[in-house]
């Protein structure tokens, strides 16, 4: 292509286009591939969720067999964490970080492509189990050990066939991809900033992706190590988690949750980043408390490494262990509270525009707060002894993952779609999406807390009538209809707006960060001239030369 005089005017055949995407090392193309790949899995995991909600809608249901139900919740959870949330966030990070720090690509473009294709391979392996998992023993086609796969359920004695092999291999491969991605994020943010972009002038999105990258290095690696041990147990006959030979099943729990809890912060910190970009722009104010925001993010990163065993209160720990993990978990509320107040203070007195990204951001603020508060309830060990492994826990973490992470991701889609495609998403459809999803979310997950308090354990495929659980479960299941319709509207909006959406210029939202300084969609080289910045809001300086930010920072 480089040898052609005017490459853009050449019409490429479909094969050439496919090759271009398969072989690309461009951070924007890789970012989009991450996002599209994750959206496909989002639809799959949504279908799995709907099937489970149909099964649980009324008592003594026979819609699904217990075996299928076990597979569905395992696949739903594993897919959601590793093949929806992680790739979507990595995709946005990939797309936005170089643009926002004024770079032309990530630090290691080919490593970036490697990371994406490893993640893609991981997802294919997980779903490959549907085709080959049964093995010669015909022992079940998909993983059914739960997303945290407690030992000894994963031992060959209890998981014959290959479904668990596919699960562990899939997470190992995807984990290698994530670690490569984490390395790349850190190297990009530290080494590729444009002139003048000091650490204290970086957009919060870059800061938060930096912290996320650091967390990936120290959290995905323990998971990788634990998967290696599990593989040694399954393939080589080792005894890491084999109680018969004196091994400890609790050790798997520790290793898994040393990964598992910080992983939640790997997912939520990039969402904080989206919210920290959307709220200032739609409140027409600079971010309130930028240094406090950075400090809070870094401290959340550190504290999150010391809270894992709050997932294990019901397993039994000495009292000092309980006390330690109760206290560290509660400490997380301090920096998180700082963030929420900073976002509120940014909105306070601002000229708020309730465009769709802002609607989702406000929804995030409210729901993330509630999810955090139920988190504080569960962090109290005695309360957790009562409600651990109940639907209260399921409602709590879906409040964070759907009400927090998903809402922030939707805000990001509506905010950056014009940059990625050059066209606006329809605001009317966006508002329908928001309100239907909001109603559906609250129907499903608000009412899910109650059967949990009434004693309904998680992961049961059905329940007896007459325990007072039916109404709440029925309401939860009805909520999924609203969510499904909202998602269909979202998908329709994304597809139709790509062809008929209003064409936009560089900067449809009148925003202040560097990605809006280049065309929409950006050219392959991002910036014709590498920009040079003097404040946290370089585009404000450009638009208001008489009153630039750098005079005050």
């Amino acid at each position, binding site marked *: 292509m480089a040898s052609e005089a005017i490459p853009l005017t050449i019409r490429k055949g479909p094969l050439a286009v496919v090759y271009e995407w398969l072989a690309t090392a461009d951070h924007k193309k890789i970012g989009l591939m991450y996002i599209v790949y994750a959206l496909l899995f989002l639809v799959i995991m949504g279908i799995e969720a709907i099937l489970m909600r149909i099964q649980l809608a009324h008592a003594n249901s026979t819609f699904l067999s217990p075996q299928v139900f076990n597979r569905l919740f395992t696949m739903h959870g594993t897919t959601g964490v590793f093949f929806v949330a992680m790739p979507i966030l990595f995709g946005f990070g990939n797309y936005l970080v170089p643009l926002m720090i004024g770079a032309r690509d990530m630090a290691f473009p080919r490593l970036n492509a490697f990371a994406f294709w490893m993640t893609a391979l991981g997802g294919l392996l997980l779903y490959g189990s549907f085709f080959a998992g049964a093995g010669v023993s015909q022992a079940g086609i998909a993983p059914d050990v739960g997303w945290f796969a407690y030992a000894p359920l994963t031992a060959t004695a209890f998981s014959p066939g290959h479904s668990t092999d596919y699960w562990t291999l899939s997470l190992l491969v995807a984990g290698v991809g994530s670690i490569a991605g984490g390395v790349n994020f850190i190297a990009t943010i530290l080494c590729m900033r444009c*002139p003048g972009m000091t650490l204290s002038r970086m957009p919060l999105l870059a800061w938060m992706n930096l912290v996320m990258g650091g967390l990936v*290095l120290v959290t995905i*690696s323990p998971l990788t190590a634990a998967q290696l041990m599990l593989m040694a147990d399954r393939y080589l006959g080792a005894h890491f988690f084999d109680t018969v030979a*004196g091994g400890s099943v609790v050790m798997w729990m520790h290793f898994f949750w040393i990964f598992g809890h910080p992983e939640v912060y790997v997912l939520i910190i990039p969402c904080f980043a989206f919210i920290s970009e959307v709220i200032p722009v739609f409140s027409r104010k600079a971010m309130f408390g930028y240094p406090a925001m950075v400090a809070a993010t870094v401290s959340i990163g550190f504290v999150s490494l010391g809270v894992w065993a709050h997932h294990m209160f019901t397993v039994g720990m000495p009292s000092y262990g309980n006390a330690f993990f109760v206290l560290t978990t509660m400490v997380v509320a301090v920096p998180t509270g700082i963030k929420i107040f900073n976002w509120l203070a940014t909105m306070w007195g601002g000229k708020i525009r309730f465009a769709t990204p802002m609607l989702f951001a406000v929804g995030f603020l409210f729901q993330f707060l509630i999810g955090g508060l139920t988190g504080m309830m569960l962090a109290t060990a005695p309360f957790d002894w009562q409600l651990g492994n109940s639907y209260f826990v399921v409602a709590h973490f879906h409040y964070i993952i759907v009400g927090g992470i998903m809402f922030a991701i939707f805000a990001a889609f509506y905010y950056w779609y014009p940059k990625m495609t050059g066209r606006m998403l329809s605001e009317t459809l966006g508002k329908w999406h928001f309100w239907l999803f909001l109603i559906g979310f609250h129907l499903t997950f608000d009412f899910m807390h109650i059967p949990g308090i009434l004693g309904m354990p998680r992961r049961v495929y059905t329940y007896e009538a007459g325990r007072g659980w039916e109404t709440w479960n029925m309401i939860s299941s009805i909520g999924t209809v609203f969510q499904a319709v909202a998602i269909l509207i979202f998908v329709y909006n994304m597809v139709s707006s790509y062809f008929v959406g209003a064409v936009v210029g560089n900067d449809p939202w009148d925003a202040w960060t560097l990605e809006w300084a280049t065309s929409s969609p950006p050219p392959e080289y991002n910036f014709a001239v590498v920009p040079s910045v003097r404040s946290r809001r370089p585009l404000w300086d450009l638009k208001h030369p008489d009153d630039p930010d750098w005079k005050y920072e």
Partner: protein
Amino acid sequence: MSATGASMAANDAAWDLPSRGRVGMYCLIVAESAIFTIFVVAYVFYIGKSLSGPAPREILHVPIFSTICLLSSSLTIHWAIAALRKGKTAVFGVFWFITLALGTIFIAATAREWRHLIYQEDFTIQTNLFGTTYYSLVGLHASHVIVGLIGLAIVMILALLGKVKREQSERCEVFSLYWHFVDAVWVIVFTTVYIVGR
């Protein structure tokens, strides 16, 4: 923070960011350290918990010679790069070759040790918890040594072809960080397996 135009220009001239190769390698080392940490924790947790023999003291011999070889290879790779930075490619080649040889001696010693354990002592990863943790921890380290040896060998071949010059000293140094890491991890593994665990 309020910069005038003049001081901004001065800032531009001094715009100096860390090398991405170095940062990338440090990140990889952090991630690898986390993996090793988990294996070391598992090793320490299972010391003395095997339900059957053999015990470490009965079959393990402390590999002092190969340890000295591996640790001194950190010195030789350092000298190799110091020579390359001054443009002395011949000195570089000699020290790089010694590094490669020392690493090979180490991995050969590990191979002999494993052969002895498997064939003479009938001790495998399946024998007991000690076998499980011993082979996985030492094996994890050995696989890192092998990856390092492959890297060393590739650079050695390029050096013999005369392709490694002063301009490549930065890249070689980034690679040497990995080799130093592998050596440093051996100190931990050696202490855990042959001193604390024995």
